[in-house]
Every structure is written in C-alpha cells, then in structure tokens.
C-alpha cells in the first residue's frame, strides 16, 4: 500500500492510495455535505451534494466517488460550491413533500442538515406537490414516500448488509419510486427480516419506526432553533 499527499482547503494531508476525496476531507475535518453516501455501503454518487473543486480540472467532482490523487489541490467549501449545493438542496425540497413540521425526523434529518450547511433559507423553485404513497403495511415500520429523496441508502443497506434485497427503485425520472418487493405492500414482502437496517440508513423521515419520534426531536437544540425560525418564516412548510 502506498501513501499519497494532497492539499485540501489549504491543509496538506497524507492518505493511503485508493482513499476517496471525501475520506481525505473528513480526515482534515473539512465538512462536505453528503446525502446518498453512507459509510459501509457501496457508493453511488447520486445526490451530487459532495461536489468539490480540484485545481486544474474544469469539472466539479463528486468527492464520495473520486479517488484522491497525488498532488491534488482540493477546495471543498467555496462560495461557488455552496451555491451549487444550495440549488441542489432546493431541488430536493421542491420535488418531494417535505413538511418538516409534522415529520418524524424533524431535527434528525440529513436533508435538513444539508439545508442548514448550505445556508438554504428558502426554495426558489415551485413545489411540485407530487402524489406519493404511504405504506404502513409493515407491523413495525412505515414508509412515507413523500419524504423519500431516492438516495437508495435503504436499498443498499438491505441488499448489501442484510442480504434481503427488499427494496428497489422502479420507474424513471420524476416518477422514480422506491418499491418493496415487486411493487407490493412492504408488510407482504416475505424477504423482509424486519431487521430495521433501512430505518437506520434512511437520511430523512421516509422510513421510520412506527411510534417513536418526539424524543429525538428534543435532543438537538440548535437544529430545533433553526427549524422554529424556518417555520416562523414559512420557508419549509410552503
């Protein structure tokens, strides 16, 4: 194994060859927002929040799937990048039905975190208000597709960690949809072991444990504060 050196946000770092830019950034404490990435699952590079700039490369690169290379000079947090990321977060909010105020994951949601970290204060694009189905056929868990951001973390956790492959994405484009089994009620999918890994994987409140919520909400004051303000200004609750 060999070691390479590169510079991230002005800090020099040595890291083993094969590491991603995201891993390298985490090592120097540079906070790159991510949504589809979950340590331990195969990377898919789908949410595009983790884009970074590398000097000499004219394109933005997704940090979670880009290998760190010798001599790279990486910027993870420029105004330009934050602008891109903010627009991406806005697109997420506008395409689903994210009513944070009534969400089980309020305050414990990575989409909210992304909004905070990119300074998204309001959504400039029209909300799409898609018709999406809720599935509460499972005795322990529920799926509210209104909050699903199609990150496929649940799909990968179930497939790669549990080996059950209950989840998949069906249809395409704006109609892409998380399905259980062969597009059937979750509770009727025999393959599901009720392990709850998808619940742990989900960055939003789309997959949740039935019954448990409010306690989590009170744990993080800073976010609650932010949300109270957001709600006051009617920014996230349309």
């Amino acid at each position, binding site marked *: 194994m060999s070691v390479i050196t590169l510079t991230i946000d002005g800090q020099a770092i040595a890291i083993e060859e094969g590491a991603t830019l995201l891993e390298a950034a985490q090592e120097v404490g540079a906070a790159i927002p991510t949504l589809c990435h979950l340590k331990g699952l195969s990377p898919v*590079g789908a*949410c*595009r929040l983790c884009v970074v700039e590398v000097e000499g490369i004219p394109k933005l690169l997704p940090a979670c799937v880009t290998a760190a290379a010798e001599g790279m000079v990486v910027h993870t947090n420029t105004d330009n990048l934050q602008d*891109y990321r903010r627009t*991406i977060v806005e697109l997420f909010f506008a395409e689903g039905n994210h009513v944070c105020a009534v969400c089980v994951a309020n305050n414990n949601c990575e989409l909210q975190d992304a909004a905070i970290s990119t300074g998204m204060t309001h959504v400039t*694009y029209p909300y799409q208000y898609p018709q999406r189905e809720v599935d509460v056929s499972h005795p322990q868990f529920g799926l509210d597709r209104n909050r699903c951001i199609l990150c496929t973390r649940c799909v990968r956790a179930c497939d790669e960690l549990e080996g059950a492959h209950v989840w998949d*994405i069906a249809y395409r*484009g704006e109609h892409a949809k998380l399905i259980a089994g062969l597009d059937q009620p979750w509770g009727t999918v025999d393959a599901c072991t009720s392990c709850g890994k998808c619940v742990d994987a989900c960055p939003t409140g789309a997959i949740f444990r039935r019954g448990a919520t409010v306690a989590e909400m009170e744990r993080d004051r800073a976010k609650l504060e932010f949300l109270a303000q957001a709600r006051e200004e009617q920014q996230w609750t349309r």
Partner: protein
Amino acid sequence: MIDLQQLQDIGQQERDRRKPVRIRCCTAAGCQSSGACSVKEQLDGAVAAADLGDRVAVAGVGCMRFCGRGPLVAVDHEDGTSQLYEGVTPENAASIVGTLQGQPTTATLGDWNHPFFAHQMPIVLENSGNIDPERIEEYIAVGGYQQLYRALHDLSPEAVVKEISASGLRGRGGGGYPTGLKWATVAKMPGDQKYVICNADEGDPGAFMDRSVLESDPHRILEGMAIAAYAIGANHGYVYVRAEYPLAIAHLQTAIKQAKRLGILGSQIFDTDFDFKVDIRVGAGAFVCGEETALIASIEGKRGNPRPRPPYPAQSGLWQSPTLINNVETYANVAAILRRGSEWYARIGTEKSKGTKVFALTGKVENTGLIEVPMGTTVRRIVEEMGGGVPGGRQVKAVQTGGPSGGCIPAHLFDTPVDYDSLLALGTMMGSGGAIVIDDETDMVDVARFYMDFCRSESCGKCVPCRAGTVQMYELLDRILEGRATERDLASLERLCVVVKDTSLCGLGMSAPNPVISTLRYFRHEYESRLRSPMAAGHGG
C-alpha cells in the same frame, strides 16, 4: 473451416450468378413503411410475367438514402448505367420492368446526379442500397470479411490498433473520442476476459443512421467488431439494439447465423486461434441506456442506470472486465480503413475530424434522408444544396444537431464546416448524426421545451440535478412560452442550466440544458419578448 480461397470463391460465385440486369428495391424500414414490400412483390411478379427471369433479377436491398422520396427502386443495366425511380407504388412498379422491353413507365424518374447524392461520399454506406443485407454472399462478393482475414493472418493486434489510430477515426456515438486510443487502452488492460460492445441504442429523436446501417449492411458491423475484438483481445461481443428496430434485429440475427455457418464467427476463425462470438441484447428503448455505463448495466440484467466514471468501461466494464464500447457507425468504418489504408482515410475530412459522417437530414427540409458527407462539409451545403432548403417558400432559421444533447446552428453561421470542434465552438455538437432543419415559423423556445420534455421523461432519476432539474427547467420554459414568466424566471432557468450541466452524474443530465443554452445564445430575443413585466406578474405557482 473457411480459408481465403474459399472466401474468394464464394464472392466469385456470387458475382457469376448475377444476371445482366439487376433491379434493386429498397426494403429498409423507411421504404417499407411506405409500401416497399408490395412494390418488390410487383417487381418480382412483373419479371416472371414478362419471362425475363434469366436476364433480370430483383433484389431487396438496404437503404438507398433518399428516404423522403421512397419507396426507391434502381435498375442497373447491362451497360453499367443505372436508373433511379422514386415514390414507386405497387401500381406503377410493373411498368418499371416494362422499360426493359422498351415500354414507357408511369413511375417517377429519380436522378443519381441530384445534389442530394452528388455531394455524398459513401464509406459507411458504401454497400447500403447495393447489396441484399440478408445474404452474406453479397457482402463477401464486395470484399466482405477479407479484412478480418487479413487482420488475423497478416497483422498483429498492435498493428491493427496502430492503423485505426493513424486513420484519425473518432467515435461516432456523439463524443468523438479517438477510436484508436480507446482500442489501445482496452488492449493494454491486463486480464484475460475482455468484451466488445456495439452501441446501437440510437435514441435521439430524428436519428436513424445506425438503424439504417444495421438494416442495410449488418455484416459490416460484425466484421468491424471482430477486427476490434482481435485488436483488443476479446472473444465475446454484444450488440445492444433497441427493441423499436425489429428489422435491424432480424437482419443482424440472420447475419450472425450466416457468419457462424461459414465459420467466420465462432472458434478458430480462419484457422487461427482467434475465437469470437456475438450476442444481441435488445434494449427496451430507454434513451439513457445508450449511455455506456447504463448500457452495460442493462446487458448485465440490471436496471439501466448510469454509474459514475471512472472507472471507464475500458478499465472495468461488462462484468468488471475491460470493455470496448463503440457506436455502430464507428465499427462500420473499420473494415474500410483496413482495406484502403489509414492514409487514405486520414486524407478525408478536416485536420482533427477525419473521414465522413452520416447524418439523418429531417425536419423542415425539402429532401429528407440519409447523407454521408466528408467531415468539413459546410452546413449550408447540407441544408441548402443537398437538402434543397425549406419547402413552401419559407426561410430556414436553424439546424439542430446532437438532438437533446446538442444545440442549434443559426442560419447566419451556415458556412461553418461540420466537424467535431467547429460544432462544439458553436455550442452544439456532432452528436450521433441527427440534423433537424427548423424553419422561420418555428418558435425556438418551443424547440427548447420539446427537448427538455424529452430529457425530463428520459432521465433515469438517479441523480437529483437531472431528475428534478429537468422538471423545473421544463416548467420554466413552459411558463415563458405561455407568456407567464418574468425576468426572474429567465434568470432561474439560466442558473439551473449551469447547475444541471455541472453537477449531473451522466451525459444525459450534463447535456440536457444544451438546447436551452444554445437557443438562448442565438435567439435570446425570442425568450425575452415573451417575458412579462415583474410588476404585472405575481410570482409562484
């Protein structure tokens, strides 16, 4: 096992069995849809009725290119001359046979010297419309499979790669990546198992070049793929064709079967240790499955979603093996380059774009069909001379190339030579070869909205900039078109163009904004003239 002598014998026998007069009837998809099959039946019937069977043969051939005037029939006379007939109907087909006995015909005469044909330089299409695509003997009779033989016996894999590199051939699937470099990369990758893939997914609206090549000259693709496989060290190939092309699939299946029967595909081809087999995979007609990583996922039986590159297919492609993926037209050039030499090929075209390019000329233009022109031909020649301009006395406004990933070339820039780099400089791209002519009645915002609608419904939905961004851009275009938009909406649209282009995962999303960017560049006034003043407009849904 077949050897060179036998190959040449097959060709000779085929030439010997030719009758003095040959009537060629196009039976490719375009002409078929306007009744070519019954035209051919009538021709067959008329030859039999006139008892001309031993002097005259009717052949169903591939595309003769002037599709807009189909069904096309050509009569090749003993003296080497040829007469073209256009818009032939089952009713007047028999009268064409009558001309052989000195009778007048009611069929419309065509003209091989028409500018539509005169400016063409058929290389990819050299056999198209001349040979019966369902008979391997006809392909062999025009020299087919001899370059594969020569490669296997006289050239090392490295020499083949070198020849392709020296020709300057670039990928015809849209990107224009140097083909020789791609081959060299896959060839140099370690690993025993490698694959070649032919990308025949052709999903751009208005494009039908690849379909035509597969329908009209399928053996050409097989030969090109086999030569590529030899050059890079693969023993297995796939042709990925969309299900909407049943005739292309049928002709390809026939071709594979025939080649296998003669031992040109299979094991120990031409008595060497080179094995090669080809399978067909039929795609369900998703545009995104033309993207190479999505196509590979689809062949593997997975959902056709793109994945981030690197690794490129050349490094890790089908079943994680090094994989060469090229477009139909790219493979169609290979045997010709070996036959006539890379120097010959490199003399055609411009400095950085060598050879010819096939375009499907459609839209508001007098002459529609397939044209194969040398790189560097001006847009004006294509649209005005060959295409004959816009019908009905209207003015031409622009040409869209590159389909939903490309952009438009406005009429005042028609003197631009068509090559990869000139088109990129204009903000469009070569694309796979669709050329859609737009007249002055057409609204450019509407054109942009059409393509955005296409991208929005063809987005695979994996990454958010494309999945959600195309929806928002479509709505903004719609708003502008309906006169509901403000200055701010236009700014939003332009911002989204940048974000979707720069952050999408695959080429579909990265290029989805191009038609908007391009129409804004040349026809911004058409957007601006539709904006409402911000005072009058309430913002929001």
